[in-house]
């Protein structure tokens, strides 16, 4: 229902192309919140919209969609072999890396924009500013990229920006089951002739809801009470089980 209403609003804005102040791009999200409930297995959000001018014309225009999640601090540790046993050895801390990063575009971003533009808008893993503390070996940064990608929390060009007709576009952003709660920014950029000519920022809220949210907030807010509850519940469950399954 909400999607329909949004689509109508968008359609309305398309119907009025005569307005001189019409923005070069108009984009929307299929939803502005993702709920992590007890049955959460990941989510996919559709970014869709239209451009003011035709996309196909020369010089070509390109669309870039980039989504970033709340920053977090992570430690990358290298395994070392001590007397035959593999231990966690030297480490590098990255105090503020995006917990989620997804990039997609109509073409590869390096074909669309020069390096300084890509760096400014943080387009592509190579252009993320990742401040590090500790061991400065570049292997740690490479490992961070690889580990984040293998968990599905960072991805590039997972699904391309697709076009319908001459002005409509859409892209899908996949959030894995391990996605963090928090505020997510989704930027839609329109690029032409090696520079960004328009951008629109959208926001998305990922929230824990229902039982999962209550449990997590109780465990964090009142850990002692939560601990007591865990003890009581386990005792009750064990006792109940022995009553239910008692063999005569």
């Amino acid at each position, binding site marked *: 229902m909400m999607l329909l209403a949004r689509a109508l609003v968008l359609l309305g804005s398309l119907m009025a192309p005569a307005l001189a102040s019409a923005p070069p791009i108009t984009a929307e999200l299929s939803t502005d919140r993702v709920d992590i409930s007890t049955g959460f297995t990941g989510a996919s959000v559709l970014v869709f919209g239209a451009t003011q001018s035709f996309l196909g014309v020369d010089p070509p225009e390109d669309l870039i969609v980039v989504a970033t999640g709340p920053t977090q601090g992570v430690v990358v540790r290298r395994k070392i072999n001590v007397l035959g046993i593999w231990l966690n050895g030297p*480490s590098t801390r990255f105090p503020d890396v995006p917990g989620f990063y997804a990039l997609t575009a109509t073409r590869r971003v390096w074909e669309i924009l020069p390096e300084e533009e890509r760096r400014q808008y943080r387009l592509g893993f190579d252009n993320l500013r990742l401040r590090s503390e500790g061991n400065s070996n570049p292997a740690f940064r490479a490992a961070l990229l690889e580990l984040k990608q293998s968990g599905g929390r960072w991805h590039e060009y997972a699904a391309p920006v697709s076009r319908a007709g001459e002005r409509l576009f859409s892209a899908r952003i996949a959030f894995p089951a391990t996605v963090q709660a928090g505020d997510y920014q989704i930027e839609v950029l329109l690029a032409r002739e090696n520079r960004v000519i328009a951008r629109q920022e959208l926001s998305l809220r990922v929230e824990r809801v229902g039982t999962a949210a209550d449990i997590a907030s109780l465990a964090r807010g009142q850990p002692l009470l939560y601990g007591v509850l865990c003890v009581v519940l*386990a*005792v009750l469950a064990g006792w109940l*089980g022995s009553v239910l399954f008692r063999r005569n």
Partner: protein
Amino acid sequence: MQVYLPIAEMSVDALLLLGIGFGVGWLSGLFGVGGGFLLTPLLMLIGIPSAVAVASGANQTLGASISGLVAQWRRGNVDWRMGLTLFAGGLLGSALGVQIFALLKRWGQVDVAVSLFYVVILGIVGALMVRESVSALLRRRRGAAPRRKLHEHTWLHGLPFKLRFRDSRLYISVIPPLAIGFGIGILSAIMGVGGGFMLVPAMIYILGMPTAIVIGTSLFQVVFVSANVTLLQAWQVGSVDIVLTMLLLAGGVAGAQFGAAMGTKLRGEETRALLGLLVLSVAFGLAWNLLQTPSRAFTLGPIS
């Protein structure tokens, strides 16, 4: 059916968890142990963070052992005085163990440390069990049943602070049971186990308690120490996942009944030999993981 674990912050197949709970419950019913030593490594194997696996394993052990304690208590097989002495040691030990665990977590060595503890402890306990039961089997085959003393007098009996444990028919110093409780308390906090598989042999061979009293009294210690570990882990480390615990318990309680029914058909020595082999194979599996070159040279963790 996927279910989201709020503390582990991941989705896991609920049927897989129920199945693991059932399997471990079945084995624990069969062998009369809590099964925590199987559960925690299995949880780590399916990708549950080791901190959550250990803490929720302790919570599950509590639920799984409570019905056994009630049953033993009804039959009068619990030596309360001995249980309380062991528990006093266990309380201190598990408090220290949780602190060690929090420290290991800060250093980023939880996974390795937990695995190492498992390999060493399970290796020793498994080897002792197999040796003991095989020699018992051989003795029975030879037909000579040697008469054993109730318990042997060693230097342990010369220690001060003697106390009379009437139900265990013992008059010994409180220091050995306190020390045993303390040591096993540390291990339960770090390994997420109740410690029954270590406590039972310690009570029989070190303290010289009669076998009939041993199971009930060890369950007493296991229940209270795992309750303490659950509480401290939830409070100070924040890693008990109640959804995970409940799913494991649901499977485990059902499995334990089937296991117990089957266990009555097996002989004592054979059961102990099988359990020893099981313990040893878990130790070998974990040792293999520690020694093998890891598939990834780097690991990722949160800054804590």
